[in-house]
């Protein structure tokens, strides 16, 4: 989560960053609001945990196929959730290894059904004892956001809860 937050802190302009914001209005793992809280919303779903839940079949020959099926399903669920998130920029953060397996087939599924917006992909590389690093593999494109949902997030989350990471004045 810190690697993703650090990536957004560098990419955006003095963003306010919320880690696992507890809000019924936005189910993101990391939420960054650009330009000191006055700009676009960037929401990230991190899908590392589900991969850890994978139980390999007893027959080793079936493992790779089962793994591919498992991550495809996890990816599909995450994409569906991301499509419904009220944020201008949406990202799916996944392990670098998984991304290498799926790079060819995922592209067309990242676009919004209305053609406005594309989910960005963040690849996370585990570096053993060093902290993991996050990199943008596919750049996101801006989504259209329902103004009523956006206002709810502004009023009930951004105006009330202090961000976990911010530049203090």
């Amino acid at each position: 989560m810190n690697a993703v937050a650090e990536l957004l802190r560098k990419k955006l302009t003095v963003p306010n960053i919320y880690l696992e914001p507890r809000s019924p209005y936005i189910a993101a793992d990391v939420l960054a609001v650009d330009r000191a809280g006055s700009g676009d919303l960037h929401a990230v779903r991190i899908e590392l945990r589900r991969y850890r839940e994978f139980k390999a079949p007893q027959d080793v020959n079936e493992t790779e196929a089962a793994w591919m099926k498992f991550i495809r399903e996890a990816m599909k669920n995450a994409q569906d959730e991301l499509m419904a998130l009220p944020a201008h920029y949406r990202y799916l953060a996944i392990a670098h290894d998984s991304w290498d397996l799926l790079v060819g087939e995922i592209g067309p599924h990242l676009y919004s059904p209305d053609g406005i917006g594309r989910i960005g992909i963040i690849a996370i590389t585990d570096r053993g004892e060093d902290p993991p690093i996050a990199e943008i593999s596919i750049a996101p494109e801006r989504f259209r956001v329902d103004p009523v949902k956006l206002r709810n997030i502004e009023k009930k989350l951004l105006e009330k809860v202090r961000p976990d990471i911010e530049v203090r004045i």
Partner: protein
Amino acid sequence: MDEIRIKVYHGRALQLANAMKLCRDDLPSYAWAAALLAIHSAISYCDAVLFKLSGQRSRSPDHEQAVTVVTMACKKRKIPTDGIKHLDKLVSAKTDISYGDQQVDNQRAEALCLAAERFQTWAERLL
């Protein structure tokens, strides 16, 4: 027309701040550049804020004057002035950093970048 001017100054301020960020990532190589970009991004942010609040920027070549003008404009509109102290710090260092004969060490450059980032945060909330 004012909106366009605000965008021009804001855009310039953002570019300079982003360039400062790049230099800040390698301060031993770019301390001077980072310090100068910090100062100039803050001056551009100040111009953008002044345009937003009063429809004009400070004409004085003395940037210290801009600190007074932006403070007055904020007080008139009851806007918190807490971020302006960082602008003050930056414009006070301008002559020394731009034309002085002393080295800018990493510590000083980092302090100026931090001040610029804090002033940027204050300004972004107004723009």
